């Protein structure tokens, strides 16, 4: 089963002989994206104070927009008039939008989910709005991202009621059909179904198998990274990637911590997104291979090193930890500087993984990475077990 439409072509360029990881190229209408890839989140058509040009310089090839927010502001009318989000925000590379469903449930306490869709009160003008699968696709068609998401029935990951999880999983499959039917621009945009089932093996397996029968160009793995333990998390990822066919890209939603990225690439995931690198930047947290630096700490007051000696980003080239220490959480420039570094860090990590997969040295890379991150030797058991499941023995 290959790609059915020209809206997305996926070429696997190298496969790891030990793990399930692979390096590939996703050809999208606006850009060809090298995988595995991390996609920074630009919720409202902008990436936390960074210029689109800076994102290009950082090597970002695809970024995310949130349908719920963009549908409200600037709204579909404006986006339609200018010809989509790419033009509106001056971003010429690839875009992905979510369905809007997640925001409804997480932001709005009054959301009510029925077979028809998600009913909620607009926080902007208090009117009652129904977000149906058709409406979500209509808005996403208007935004014009290269990859768009089906509306899924979202349940909190740690939710325990089997009947509700079952209902949500099955409804997600029904809504997928409605989304595919409502899709007006299949030659320019690809809808990804979302594998649901939360932490329930049977339901998740059934969800993945259902989606496999559909004419789609790639898959998303949802319902994870929502407060569950890592021991519960990784087997669900592994289960999903084990079923989803390897000729189409697999996107794990909401995951972006370095160790999670490394493990999940080993488990066969190609795409990731997370607000974490830019959100944590606002609080003065910088990412490195040795862990996170909280630049607010007094110990950085006279530290004249860059955040990371090995990093080539403009922040590390021009600024010391001591300077950043002075301005974090005080000046907006500090957010910009640490966001630049954190996105550069994510990009560099993905690039390093890609190169190692291509060279056939991915397992060695993983070992080095894990040992550097947990230099005290206390590697969490879930990391050992998950990597062991794909043939990497850290010890």
């Amino acid at each position: 089963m290959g790609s059915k439409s020209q809206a997305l072509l996926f070429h696997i360029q190298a496969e790891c002989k030990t793990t399930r990881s692979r390096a590939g190229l996703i050809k999208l209408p606006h850009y060809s994206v090298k995988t595995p890839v991390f996609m920074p989140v630009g919720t409202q058509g902008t990436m936390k104070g960074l210029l689109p040009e800076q994102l290009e310089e950082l090597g970002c090839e695809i970024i995310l927009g949130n349908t719920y927010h963009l549908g409200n502001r600037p709204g579909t009318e404006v986006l339609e008039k200018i010809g989509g989000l790419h033009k509106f925000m001056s971003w010429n590379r690839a875009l992905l939008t979510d369905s809007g469903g997640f925001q409804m449930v997480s932001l709005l306490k009054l959301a009510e989910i029925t077979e028809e869709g998600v009913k909620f009160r607009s926080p902007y003008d208090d009117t009652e709005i129904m977000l149906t699968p058709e409406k979500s696709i209509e808005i996403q068609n208007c935004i014009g991202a290269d990859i768009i998401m089906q509306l899924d029935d979202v349940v909190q990951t740690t939710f325990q009621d089997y009947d509700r999880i079952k209902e949500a999983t099955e409804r997600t499959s029904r809504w997928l059909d409605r989304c595919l039917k409502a899709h007006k621009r299949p030659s320019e945009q690809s809808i990804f179904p979302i594998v649901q089932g939360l932490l329930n093996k049977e339901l998740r397996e059934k969800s993945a198998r259902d989606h496999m029968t559909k004419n789609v160009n790639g898959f998303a793995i949802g319902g994870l990274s929502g407060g569950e333990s890592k021991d519960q998390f990784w087997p669900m990822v592994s289960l999903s990637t084990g079923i989803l066919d390897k000729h189409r890209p697999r996107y794990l939603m909401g995951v972006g911590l370095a160790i999670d990225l490394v493990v999940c690439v080993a488990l066969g995931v190609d795409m990731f997104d997370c607000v974490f690198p830019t959100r944590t930047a606002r609080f003065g947290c910088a990412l490195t291979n040795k862990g996170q630096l909280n630049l607010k700490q007094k110990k950085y007051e006279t530290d004249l090193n860059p955040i990371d000696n090995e990093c080539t980003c403009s922040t590390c080239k021009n600024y010391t930890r001591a300077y950043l220490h002075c301005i974090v959480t005080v000046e907006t420039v500090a957010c910009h500087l640490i966001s630049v570094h954190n996105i550069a860090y994510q990009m560099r990590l993905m690039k390093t993984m890609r190169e190692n997969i291509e060279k056939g040295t991915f397992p060695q890379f993983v070992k080095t990475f894990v040992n550097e991150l947990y230099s005290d030797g206390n590697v969490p058991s879930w990391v050992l077990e998950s990597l062991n499941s794909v043939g990497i023995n850290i010890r």
Partner: protein
Amino acid sequence: MRFIIKHASCGGERVGNLTGFAKMKTAVIETPTAALLTQGGSVVHLTVDVLSKVFTSPHLLWVPLSNSARLEIGVKAQGEGIAKFAGLQGHVTCATLHNASEMTPPGHFEANFVPMWTKNGKKMITADRYMDIMEIYTPDILLAIADSHITLNEGQKRISKSVERSRVLLDTCVNRYVNSKRLQDCALIGVITGTGINEKCDHCIKHLLTHKEHLNGVALSGMTDGSEESLKIEKDKLETIFKSISESIPSELVKFIEGCWTPDIIMTAIQYGWDVFDGSYPSKLTNAGQALALNFDVDKNCDELCLLDLNDVRYKEDFRPILEGCECHTCKKHTRAYIQHLLNTREMLSTVLLSIHNLHHFDQMFVHARRHIASSTFDVYKLHIVKQYERYKQQVPIESDSEKDKDTVQTAKKICVSNDVLENVSIFK
């Protein structure tokens, strides 16, 4: 630092070069010019990376100590001055005590101590302490510490105090400056205050000039306390001040003006030979969501507003750049509609894009001014700019400034009381 006058007209306006900076040997700052306002050592809202997309040549940075005091320990540890520490070593720095356009609570003086209002509240500082920090910051240009954050309309007693205190402060500054090895490459600028009363101001200037051999220039202060109200000064009165003070200063000294003056007033100051302005005006516009859109072509009659308020919903579907033909990164890539959206959603990119445009455009206003002075057509240019600004003022009813000022003072007082760094930084809420 050397100040070389390249062309001076009989009217008073002149073009010159600031050169010979020890840290930036090749840097030439052409005057008249405006500095770029910094906050915490960085040009407001812009990283070095983005700043390099706006300006490729060295610019003058305005570094108020009040918003950069917390950098002291780090600058000292590095030992290479404020510019290098803030990643801006490609530029020239001018340090001063306060940002003159920021309102601060009145009073709070103690013998030999000047109040410095920071985000962490009030800090009392002596002239010696100020010079200690300057020895660490080693700016290229240094404004003497003064008690000059007052309006033209202050009472006689306050103005006398201002002049008297500033005299003592200057003496200490000069004394420290002359004996400082670390500041030997730094240019010292004396601060003029007492501007509200001719006689007091004369005293101040006379005293300044007793130190003339150590001064590279003067800075005109004592006209505004940062409030909108204090900036509303009758045209004639302003002209008299700019003219008479300028004439009493030897022409070889470079002349600075502090304060958030609008383009029409800046033109008048340039006309009377004032050379350097602080960069608070474009930064104030940016923070208010406004964009400057002056037309610089004197042959063109321009009916468009020279200031756009991009918060206005009228720009929601306006897919034009801020200013047609503008060469800045923002105008080349982005639309009014996008900036309106960013402001509406309180996204940080709004101030980045507006800063890029406003700094570029404000700088262009000076580029054109220099060109016109050199070709002796400055009067035409001045009229062209003043006309546009006056048309804007007529068409856009300005909201009550005294209300705005009240808010500013309230905020300043709150900061003073609470000592909370984060309180005033809404983006982190």
